[in-house]
Structures are given as C-alpha cells and as structure tokens.
C-alpha cells in the first residue's frame, strides 16, 4: 500500500517536473535574483558593488519615486470604483435583455481582447487634437468652437481623464463577464418570491442582487487594485508620463531606472517596494473581508 502511494507520488512529481523546472527558472529564480540585485549597484552588464540597504535608503529620499507611487495611486483611485460600477451596470443591461445577451456580451467584451499596444494607440488617436475622434465630435456638435482645440494629453488633469477612459473602455469587459455569470447564478425563485411580496425593481437590485454579488465584488476589487497599480503601457504611449512627469506611474520609473539609467539595482529595490505595498494592500483587504464574514 505504502509502495503504491509512493509510486503515485513519484509519478505525479514526474508529470509536474517540466512545469516546475520552467516555473523555477522563469519565476522563482528571477525573484530571488531580484532581491540580490536590490542590494547591489548593478548595471545591465554586471554587478558592480555591494551597497547593502543603500538602494532602499535612497528610495526613501527620492521624490520622483514617491511622486510616481502617488500617480499610480491616483490611477487606482479613479479607475477601481468605475471599473466595478460600470461592470455591474453593463451586466444588468445584458442580464435583463436575454434576447440580445449574446450581442451585448460580445460588444462589451471585445475591447479586452486587444493588446495593450493596440488599445494605447487607439487611445492616442482618439484623444489627439485636430484629427482626434473626441475633438472632432465636440466640434461637430458645436460644444467646442471650430478655432479651438482641447489638448487632452498635454494637461495633467485631462490626461488622467483620457487615460482612465481608455483603460475603462478597454478592460471593463472582464469584470462585466464575471458579474454577468454571477448574476445568472442567482436562482430565479429568489426573484419570484420577491416579486410576489411586491418588491420594486430598485428594491430587488439593492436587497437581493447586490448582496448576492458581494463575494465576486470583493474578488474583483482586490484584483482590480493590483492590476491598476501595474499600469504602464497605455500611459507610456499616450503621454509618455508627461507633462513634467506628472502622469508617470511607478512601473515607468522602474523601467526608466533599469533600462534607461542602466541601474538595475535601484530598479529592483523599487520593484520590491511596490511588491510590499501590493502585499500589504491585499493583506488588509483579506483581513477586512474575513472580519466581516465572522461578524
């Protein structure tokens, strides 16, 4: 009996081995190497010298770093609630109209299959002055005089709006699909019972649908915060982090430090700081969710 179990274990291990090798080589090992790097002055070519906690110390005095952390945070604050509210609204629309459900599902989801590069360039074309879609529309409906232009991507506040709208359009489809499937899991009997008791549409939504969606909402919130913190490419394409680095997210700073300034050590230290921030945020959220459930 024992022998048999051992054999099964060995077999399982053998089957897992290829994955484990790849996983170790491309995920675990770089992570360990990254920690090592963060303690050195390390260029693209070689490690130069041990600096201990020097990189971390430098980070605490580096205004650019904290500014870029703040920019990523702004993005999280703007987009996360919208990502959830809009996804619920879209899911409600699709869920209500069962004939057009298939249509809605593809319309809302299709943007998410675009690559980040394609989506970002679309954003650039939509928001650019003179020939961009938004300004042309505004001219067309006479909201904007023919002789003036809105420079969406050159003003910090407008740039955040443009970047957020683009990201919303591009990625909300995923949350929408998750919500839609969660809504479809709610048994019809619950709704029927509510109707018999004379509940209005809004009562049904606030008292039944929304509470039943709360587990998926928690999951989506957490994943959305992490995903939004990692924003980079669409900002890089649309504003380059400008004006005056005021939209530069932390990932862009890390990339610039590593590959433009040739300082992989400091870049690794910043990456680990970001990692810790995300870890703390997820931990906090996990703790809050658990506490509520105990209550």
């Amino acid at each position, binding site marked *: 009996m024992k022998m048999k179990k051992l054999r099964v274990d060995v077999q399982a291990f053998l089957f897992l081995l290829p994955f484990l090798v790849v996983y170790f080589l491309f995920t675990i090992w770089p992570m360990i190497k990254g920690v090592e790097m963060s303690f050195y002055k390390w260029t*693209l070519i*070689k490690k130069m010298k041990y600096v201990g906690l020097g990189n971390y110390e430098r980070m605490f005095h580096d205004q650019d770093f904290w500014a870029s952390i703040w920019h990523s945070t702004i993005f999280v604050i703007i987009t996360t609630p919208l990502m959830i509210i809009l996804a619920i609204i879209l899911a409600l629309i699709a869920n209500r109209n069962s004939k057009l459900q298939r249509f809605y599902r593809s319309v809302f989801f299709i943007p*998410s299959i*675009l690559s980040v590069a394609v989506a970002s360039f679309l954003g650039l074309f939509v928001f650019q002055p003179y020939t961009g879609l938004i300004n042309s529309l505004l001219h067309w409906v006479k909201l904007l005089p023919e002789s003036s232009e809105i420079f969406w991507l050159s003003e910090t506040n407008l740039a955040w709006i443009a970047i957020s709208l683009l990201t919303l359009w591009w990625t909300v489809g*995923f949350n929408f699909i998750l919500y839609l499937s969660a809504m479809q899991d709610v048994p019809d009997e619950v709704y029927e019972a509510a109707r018999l008791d004379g509940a209005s549409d809004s009562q049904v939504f606030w008292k039944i649908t929304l509470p039943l969606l709360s587990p998926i909402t928690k999951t989506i919130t957490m994943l959305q915060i992490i995903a939004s913190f990692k924003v980079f490419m669409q900002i890089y394409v649309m504003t380059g982090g400008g004006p005056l680095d005021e939209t530069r997210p932390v990932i862009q700073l890390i990339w*610039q430090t590593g590959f433009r300034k040739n300082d992989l050590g400091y870049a690794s230290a910043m990456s680990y700081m970001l990692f810790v921030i995300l870890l703390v945020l997820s931990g906090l959220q996990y703790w809050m969710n658990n506490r509520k459930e105990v209550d």
Partner: protein
Amino acid sequence: MKKSFGIMLALLFSFSVILSACGGSNNGNSGSNNGAAGTNDGTTGQNNESASNGDGEKVTLSFWTLFSGGDGDNMQAMIDSFNKEHPNIQVKNTKLEWGEYYTKLITAVGNGNGPDVGISHISRLPDLINQGVVSELDDVATEAGVDWSTFNQNILEASIVDAAHYAVPIDTHPFIMYYNKKLLKEAGLLDEAGKPIMEQSSDGFITFLTTLKEKLPPKVMPFAMSNTNDDPFRLWWALYSQLGGNDVVSDDLNSAQIDTDKAVQAAQYIQDLYHKYKVIKLNDPDFYKNFQSGTAAIMMTGVWATGTWESTKDLEFGAMPIPKVFDQEATWGDSHTVVLPVTKKEDPAKRKAAITFANWLADNGQVWAKAGHIPSKPSVFEKQEFKDLPYRSDYVSVASTVKFSKASTKNWQIRDLAMFKYLNEVWANKLTPTDGITKMTDEVQKVLNE
C-alpha cells in the same frame, strides 16, 4: 482564481500579439534579408570556389544593425556589394529593432555573445566605452591602413574619446530645413534658383515666417514642427549653439554647465514662434504629414526625411541648412558609426576584416546617402553617383557645422530625462524660458549625480 487566470491569459495574449506584431515587421525585414541571404549564398558559393583556389583564409563577420526601412535596405545593398568585392570576408547582417538595439547589444556583449561588428550613434559611444562594450581600434586601424585624415574632421573628432579612436563614422545626420517650393513661390518668397528669399538673421527668419502666414491661405501653416521632444529640442540645440552656447555639461563631464543667457535666448526665440507669432500649429500631432501633404511651407528635422519626401508624389521641395538665425552657423546632428564590440576571444583576423569593412562603408557613402545622410568622407561628395542624387549637395556643408555633444556617458539620459521634460513645458507656454532653463539645469545635474 478564475480572474487571475483570466489576467494571465490576457497577458499571454497581449504578449503574443505584441510579439507577433514585432514578428510581423521582422518578417518583413527578414523577407528582404532572406532575399539578400539568397544572393549572399550565391556569392558564398563562388567565394568558396575562389577560396579553394587559394585566396587565403575566409573570415565571417556577424554585424548587428538598427536600421529599418530605407536605411535598412541601403545597408543591406552595401553589405551585398562588399561581400561580392571581398571574397575572403563575408558580412552577415542581423537587423535588430531600433528600440531594443542598445539594450541587446550591451547585454549580449556582457554575456560574451556580442557580434563582431556593430553600429553606435556617436552620442551613445562614450556610454558604450564606459561599460566596456566597444573596443579601442587604433592599432588595428593602422594595420588595415585606415587613413583618418580622409574623414570629415568635425565628425571624426566627435568619435574620439580620451584621445583614442573607438569608431569609424559612416555619416552624419544633422537637423536641416525643408521647404515647399510651390507654397514659397505663391508667397513670393522663392528666387529664380528655387531658393528661399530670406535674410539669415533672427529678425529675417521671423519676417520670412510671418510673411508666409500673411500670404498663404489660413489652413496652411508656415512652419511644421512638433510640440514635444526631439525636433524642437534639436532646434533649440542648434540655436543655442549658434549663439556660441557650449554644450550643457562641463568639460570634466561632472556638472551641469548651461550657458543660461544663451539657452534662455534660444528658448525664448522658439517659444515666440509658437505663441507670439503663431507660425507653428500648436500641439500638432502630425507635423511630418502636414509638410508631406503640402499644408505647411517649411519644416525642420533630420536629413533622413529626404528619402521620404523624394518618394512623395507631387511634393516639390528643397533642402538647405537651417538658417543662420544667430551669430554663427551651427546645427544639431548625430552620426552613425561602426564599432568593434568587445569579444570573449580577440581574433586579430576578424578585427582587421571588420575595420576594412567599416572603412569601405565610409568610402562608399554614395549608397548610404540615398536615405539622406551626409557621408563621413568628403571624397564621396566628388563621386558622380553622389552628385546625381538631388538635394544632398545642397546641405553637405552642414557636416562641418554640426555641433556634437561632449563625450558624456549620460548624453541620452540627459536628453531624454532632463532636457525634453522642461523644454516641452516651455514650448507649451507653461514655463517661462528662464524658469525652464533653470529647472533643466538642476535636472541635468541630478542625472549627472546619479
């Protein structure tokens, strides 16, 4: 879990889309590469025969380039004819994406897997030397009989670091001015010889532009220019140099040393073009296209645009050095050079072959000039093949007035991370030239300190 799996999938998907997109363009390249490789193989076949006839040992060189489009085709054509002329040296071209070229070169050389021959911008050279990526080539150049005096001395000097030669320049690609002949004629600003009628002074250039604005229909902009980053920076650098401004770093390369008054004056002049005289379309996302489609009278950019304008139907244009707005002629420019990366095991035969190849590229600049670049050897200007190319002769003199950056290892960082940042705000009229230059100085210093 499901969601994170979804994210994983999305990431994978987007990666694969990006990769395949790159692959797509690569395929385009390798398509022509393959074609070329085909002919290469053909010649290799012959060469093998000639080699077996006792022509000595054959050397194969791997050559990494960052050229795409017309540049890429011209370089491949040059490599093909070099290979034909030199049965004993075969150069194999690997085209890398511009954006990742330097990172790949540096890491590959660091791992000992670098190429035998590479390309470097002259402004990037000090950084590559400092990192131990490229090797000094005085000895091998002497051995191969390279005559440094045959090069344009202004370009050559910029390639000398710490009194040693590290690179063979093959061109310079300066910032010049293009003009639309039809529009200038319409405004009465074109002389019989097809040159602009303009007084070469600070007022003269502005009068020229404001006259264009008055005389041409309102939808035509006098001056097509971007609002951010490279091209307005190049114009600023040119005007700052015309005023006698001496780079932005000190001679010992350790501190920011901007000639504030001159820098401000140059910045003010350009800011006025945007905001006071309104001769540049604000935040123009498509300034190349506007000149190309004839909705802008002049534009300024690097000489690489010549090839593009030439292949544009119905565009009657002229090319000339940028006007002498201030005291002395000067412009921005960079240069492509051939370098010998450091290799694990130094092979003298390969190094000699490589330097022979580099020198040959410089000697045959008439092919390279097709894209618009100015060859690094003045002797090329005398070749009939070069003279037959239009426009180039109008601006070859610029090669001697290009103001190269000092040999700082941080040239690109200073430009990308410090100078663009504040100059962009000056062009957007959000900072005064004085504030912009002051803040820029601090930022340059910061980059140098890091």
